[in-house]
């Protein structure tokens, strides 16, 4: 075609949409043309499913969405695996669920089934997943996602090292390694942040950093000490890594601590440019506020939570006031209305009255239809109204179920000002059916992680404390279909039914490439009251990303 992409206006084989002329793209046949030449209908396939290409929205294949505009939520371009998987996963391979669990928790699960086997060669350019910095960056990214556009890892205005880890391998002394040669390694570390009167390690990464009161980092004794001072040397693609991060402190300190942690963390290495100039972290309050703000689960046309969807629907309904008028009653229901002859009981002693619709006088002996609410009308008057709105012309009560308005008719909108009611009902219709199941699975995962990583489990009372808030699971580790496929050099995963008793697990179950990160923010502090933050758990298993935040 004459106006096929060519010449100077091209951008990767596409027409230049940034110039004066508007470019139209056909979603049907991917043809593109200038709007002033062919208008809005595709000249090739006559499709009307076309879109004017703009800088913000370029649907054409190969055209990248430009840098996230300021103010957009980070999830807008969020793909936590972007940086360690060059193969673009098929859309069908990406699964993302965000559900609300019990107790106000938010549960996000993202699964990407990579179509290519994850072997060592394909992760050449990726950051070492065993590197704690990488783990923390992931954690930080996740929190950034939760905290909304306002959140970036920033540098608080204080002296001291900007980077939590500095240039040397952090926590190398605390990392541990399990398994003999020839078997997959389990690597991991345990980070504990604490405040209060615990003394910080003087040789910790925060040397020269903030004062004792602020934040301290210390390493717990690891079960298998590895004192190698160089970067954690177990970058086996078949290994698994596990990190446990605990934050302990008095309840009123948690918020400040979180703020401190985020402030302490330097921007991720390749994100420094983007993050430059951002303000300090808003702290836990900001996190909660953004978690609870449905607007943050909304990105353009896409919503991520039921509440955000609900908000959009409410807005639409308010913009189109007539559209939330009750729908028509079914003809069958109208026909089935009982007919009565007016008598003194209905008309009173005067024996006179009027139909409220046509205001014509009625007399004893006239035939009327009676609605379930006992209001009566001329049959023609009632059916004329009911065939458009399933409400009583007087009290607005519906006359029964109808196919087009089954939800509304039962609502019985007695009060014209009951606008809030439908919203509340819709809220309750949210898809939260599987929340227990998901929470249980998460519990199972954590147990399994503890078992296989031989991390010293938390004290029993702590476990019970946590389990009280969620039901006991009978569930299993979610498995990717990929993992059932035998892969060279890999072993079938063993069902870890015994994850409740870690001591019985002698060797880590062998599995395909699997990386796990667990970040736990604990709210317990000896002798203190329960903090407002109950737990923050990040599980990052193989291709499934899990994090959950719950509040009491």
């Amino acid at each position: 075609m004459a106006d096929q992409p060519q010449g100077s206006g091209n951008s990767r084989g596409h027409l230049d949409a940034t110039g004066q002329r508007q470019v139209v793209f056909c979603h049907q046949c991917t043809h593109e043309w200038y709007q002033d030449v062919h208008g809005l209908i595709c000249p090739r396939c006559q499709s009307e499913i076309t879109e004017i290409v703009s800088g913000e929205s370029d649907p054409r294949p190969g055209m990248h969405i430009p840098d996230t505009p300021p103010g957009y939520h980070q999830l807008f371009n969020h793909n936590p695996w972007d940086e360690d998987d060059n193969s673009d996963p098929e859309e069908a391979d990406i699964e993302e669920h965000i559900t609300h669990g019990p107790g106000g928790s938010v549960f996000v699960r993202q699964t990407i089934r990579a179509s290519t086997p994850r072997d060592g060669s394909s992760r050449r350019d990726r950051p070492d997943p065993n590197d704690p910095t990488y783990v923390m960056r992931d954690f930080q990214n996740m929190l950034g996602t939760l905290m909304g556009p306002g959140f970036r890892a920033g540098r608080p205005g204080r002296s001291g090292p900007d980077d939590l880890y500095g240039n040397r391998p952090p926590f190398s002394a605390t990392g541990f390694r399990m398994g003999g040669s020839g078997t997959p390694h389990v690597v991991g570390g345990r980070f504990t942040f604490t405040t209060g009167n615990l003394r910080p390690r003087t040789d910790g990464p925060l040397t020269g950093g903030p004062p004792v009161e602020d934040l301290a980092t210390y390493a717990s004794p690891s079960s298998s000490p590895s004192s190698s001072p160089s970067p954690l040397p177990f970058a086996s693609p078949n290994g698994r890594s596990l990190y446990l991060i605990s934050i302990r402190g008095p309840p009123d300190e948690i918020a400040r601590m979180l703020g401190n942690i985020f402030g302490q963390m330097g921007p991720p290495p390749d994100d420094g440019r983007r993050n430059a100039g951002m303000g300090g972290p808003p702290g836990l309050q900001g996190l909660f506020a953004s978690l609870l703000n449905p607007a943050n689960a909304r990105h353009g046309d896409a919503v991520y939570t039921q509440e955000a969807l609900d908000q959009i629907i409410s807005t639409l309904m308010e913009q189109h006031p007539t559209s939330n008028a009750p729908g028509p009653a079914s003809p069958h229901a109208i026909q089935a209305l009982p007919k009565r002859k007016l008598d003194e009981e209905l008309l009173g002693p005067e024996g006179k009255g009027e139909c409220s619709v046509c205001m014509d006088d009625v007399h004893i002996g006239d035939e009327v239809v009676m609605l379930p609410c006992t209001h009566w009308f001329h049959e023609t008057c009632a059916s004329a109204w009911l065939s458009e709105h399933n409400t009583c012309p007087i009290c607005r009560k519906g006359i029964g179920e109808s196919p087009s308005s089954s939800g509304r008719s039962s609502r019985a909108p007695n009060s014209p000002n009951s606008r809030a009611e439908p919203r509340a009902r819709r809220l309750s219709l949210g898809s939260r059916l599987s929340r227990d199941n998901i929470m249980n699975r998460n519990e199972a995962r954590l147990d399994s992680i503890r078992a296989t990583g031989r991390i010293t489990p938390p004290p029993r009372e702590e476990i019970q404390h946590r389990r009280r808030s969620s039901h006991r699971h009978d569930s299993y580790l979610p498995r990717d279909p990929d993992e059932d496929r035998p892969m060279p050099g890999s072993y079938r995963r063993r069902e870890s039914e015994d994850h409740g008793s870690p001591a019985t697990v002698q060797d880590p179950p062998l599995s395909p490439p699997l990386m796990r990160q667990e970040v736990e923010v604990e709210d317990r502090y000896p002798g203190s009251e329960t903090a407002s933050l109950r737990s923050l758990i990040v599980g990052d298993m193989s291709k499934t990303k899990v994090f959950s935040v719950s509040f009491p």
Partner: protein
Amino acid sequence: MSAQKRIAKELAEVTSNPPAGMIIGLVDESNVHNWDITMDGPEGSPYVGGKFKLLLTLPVEYPFKPPTINFKTRIWHPNVTFDEQGSMCIGILKGDTWKPSSRIMNVLIATQNLLIEPVPDDALETSSAELFKNNRPLYEKEAKKYTAQYAIGK
């Protein structure tokens, strides 16, 4: 046609016994669907003293569809557009809350009450709604100013 009949009946009712401070008639004697109403600014509102001309339009589907009211006299009010149209937003006349048993008499009284007590959460004019919510004295001052400008002595 029942609509004509009912409208005629309602017209007779309100003209013979009009709500306080209202003069009601037809714009054109041959058309019962357009009513001409002159409403006094009610006592207890900053519109007192003004005379507001309203056009009440009854659709042919009346009473199955609600009437509409337009202020022909400009009025500075959260629920009335401050323009040539003078469109009014009032709950009783909304498509989803209208019911055939509502009468024009109810509508007119509701309109009068709306001048006394605006509904800022349902506003058409956000500036006056904000003032009404946050700075009542300034709202009253502005409303009085515009009443004097448009609705008094015209």
